[in-house]
């Protein structure tokens, strides 16, 4: 085959350029330690998501020192959980799947980008240096409401961030003379023990108790108030732990007949 001299030079140049691109990209994706989305994760059938340990309750979980996992379910036309709260300066691994059609998982202007395909789990690890809020959008057409599908990633400073959950309850009604028991449950989702103080108020009575909740566990606290002192009528109660607050009401009724022990959780 007759090839002109210039052509030969051009072809050689083109080949060098091509190999150069391949080398740069390989370095950019392997050498710099950026992990790509691959097939490491197990598959999961969309109709089994509700029973799944991880995706049954989409959430953020601490999995190691400075390491968190975020289980995210995309479905028409929302992300769960929303907002996704994560700490800054920690390694966050997102596990993203879809409950119905193919969706996208994209934080605009960043390289946080994955497809959420029903049956598959996309895994991507990121770290945010600064606290702040980032929009999260679905960037694959998923049906008529596609353009409304967005979520929020809230990056909190490490000190501010916790995985504490508070719940509290009292009976709806008590008879005069009976004790009013306020049960508060504090859950610590982080691995470090949580040292905190529980403050409570029932009517005009106040309580306080220091509490240490071990990593990944739950503690109960019970406060007891005397209904006679509070008197007949409705009384508000409040429990606070750090920034969390639970409130409700309890009624002291004179009539002995309607005494039902129903839980009241606000």
């Amino acid at each position: 085959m007759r090839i002109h001299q210039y052509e030969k030079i051009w072809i050689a140049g083109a080949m060098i350029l091509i190999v150069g691109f391949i080398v740069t990209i390989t370095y950019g994706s392997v050498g710099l330690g950026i992990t790509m989305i691959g097939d490491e994760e197990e598959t999961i059938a969309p109709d089994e998501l509700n029973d799944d340990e991880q995706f049954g309750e989409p959430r953020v979980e601490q999995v190691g020192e400075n390491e968190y996992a975020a289980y995210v379910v995309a479905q028409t036309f929302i992300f769960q959980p929303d907002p996704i709260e994560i700490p800054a300066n920690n390694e966050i691994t997102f596990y993203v799947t879809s409950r119905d059609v193919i969706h996208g998982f994209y934080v605009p202007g960043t390289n946080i980008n994955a497809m959420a395909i029903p049956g598959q789990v996309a895994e991507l690890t990121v770290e945010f240096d600064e606290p702040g809020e980032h929009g999260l959008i679905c960037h694959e057409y998923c049906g008529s409401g596609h353009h409304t599908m967005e979520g929020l990633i809230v990056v909190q400073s490490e000190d501010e961030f916790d995985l504490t959950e508070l719940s509290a309850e009292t009976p709806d009604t008590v008879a005069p003379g009976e004790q009013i028991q306020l049960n508060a449950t504090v859950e610590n989702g982080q691995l470090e023990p949580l040292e905190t103080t529980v403050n409570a108020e029932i009517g005009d009575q106040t309580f306080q108790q220091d509490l240490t909740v071990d990593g990944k566990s739950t503690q109960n606290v019970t406060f007891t108030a005397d209904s006679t002192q509070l008197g007949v009528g409705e009384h508000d109660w409040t429990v606070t732990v750090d920034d969390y607050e639970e409130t409700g009401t309890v009624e002291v009724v004179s009539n002995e007949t309607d005494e039902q022990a129903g839980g009241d959780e606000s």
Partner: protein
Amino acid sequence: MTALFVDEYPAEARLVKAAFLSSFIAFGIGALFGIIQALHRTDIFRFIDSIKYYTVLTGHGVFLVIAFTIFFLVGLYQWAVTDSLERGPVDIRFTWFWYGLMAIGSFLAAISILAGFLEQPPMVLGAELRANVLFTFYAPLEANPLYYIGLALFLVGTWLAGIDWFRTWWAWRDENPGERIPLRTFMVLTTMMMFFLGSVGVIVSILVFILPWSLEITESLNPLLTRTLFWFFGHMIVYFWLLPAYLLWYSVLPKLSGGRLFSDPLARVVFILFVLLSTPVGIHHQYMDPGIAEGFKFIAMTNTMFLLLPSFLTAFTVVASMEHGARQRGGEGRFNWLQALPWRNPAFTGMALAGLVFAFGGFTGIVNAGMNINYLVHNALWIPGHIHAQVGTATALTLMAGSYWLVPQLTGNRLVGRQVALFQVVLWFVGIVFMTNSMFRAGLVGVPRRTAEPQYQGFEYDVPVGSMGELNAQLALGGTLLFISAMLFLVLMLLTVFNNDSEPIVDGTLPPALSGPEDSPQVLDNLRLWFGIAFALVVLAYALPLAGIVAQSGLFGQDIPPFPVSSEAVMYLEFGLDYVGALVT
């Protein structure tokens, strides 16, 4: 001056005209939908419901990149085969048969898309008639079965067209034993080999999985599998859009420049490289997909980079041929020869500008192909920027420019409004510069593609230079210029068709290459060999990923039901309630 194509091959000319007519109708509707999108997305003028935006977008994709491009391709290729073999098809009834299949197929697909505008679409084949699934129709989004049937018929028609040209060539070979395949026929045959190989993916996806599932014959499918099969086809198809433009650049552009093609052998090498490499790269569209191992993505990336080679070679040959032409016309100097080119000829100028945009678009393609950089731009507006530079201009503008040269030969009429035509191609160029500039930049700040309302509640785009308003204005301005340009083109074509008592002033002869087929080794014409190697490469690139996907979640997936996209929210509501119910219990 030889006889006109229409005088020499009137029967074939009729078919080419029919194909061009279908192509131009699709182009007109597609362009109309394009400007609607450009105005809607940017919130400059919204006169349709945002839900209907997706009907428009589906139409834009299907009418432009399926109907406009491929109808033009079959017309152009019919011309190329007939003209270069100097004979018609073996049986012209077969030729009309495949054209008919394509026409019916695209008609069915078109009505199922357009029915999306109706408030109450009729029931067809047991489901509401609609197809708001875009041209990629990722399952489990579901369209009416008619849409898939239409697409399948269209693809089968295209297959038969390829078989028809092979038959013509076989017949010619028997009459001309030992002769080299004429270059244009060579290009047609290699393009079709590429198409045969690559379209297997989408045909299997439609006929085995999606169509039976939409007809409720099967109950479930594997969305990653159908998506992967789509992209098996999806990258090949971009070269299927491009190669008609290449054919024109290699055969007509040198002549328009006043010279001859630089090298026939290299042109053949280029087309063979496309046969070999254009399919085993499809996974580069799935870098973000879970369920496909990194290694396979890596292989796709490497193949993609090698696929740059034929385009680099083309850049050389095209520029060298233009320079040769310019020097024949008296051009001199290192760069001054550029002035000697026939810039007043709309066919030439259109193709030259298209080539320029293609070179730039090629670099944006390299960005897309980089596995790591792709994370920034995947599914961002950057991608339609790339699309419009490539198929939307490199191909579309070349086809329009080519029409200015070819249509007079097909009709026997003189081109009406040569000056206007020149203005039209330049206008397209200006429009595309504005529109893609906006799309590239908006994509880099994360504005997503395929979205009716790319403004969100929770955040604002961080535009470093300029502002979102400025980007939107550019997109709308560019889109409007493109739309005007498209309409001008169609008007000129229409006027030309009815410009009956005129003599075309086109010379249809194409001079032979400077370095002719005698310089190219015989093995280049061994089509069987190249097809065999191409097949092997596809097996190498795809066997393992496909096997992996099937092994993970089965051939038919894990209970994945269809999600019909209708304008009603009922289905989603039901589904949501189901879900909430499950949470409560």
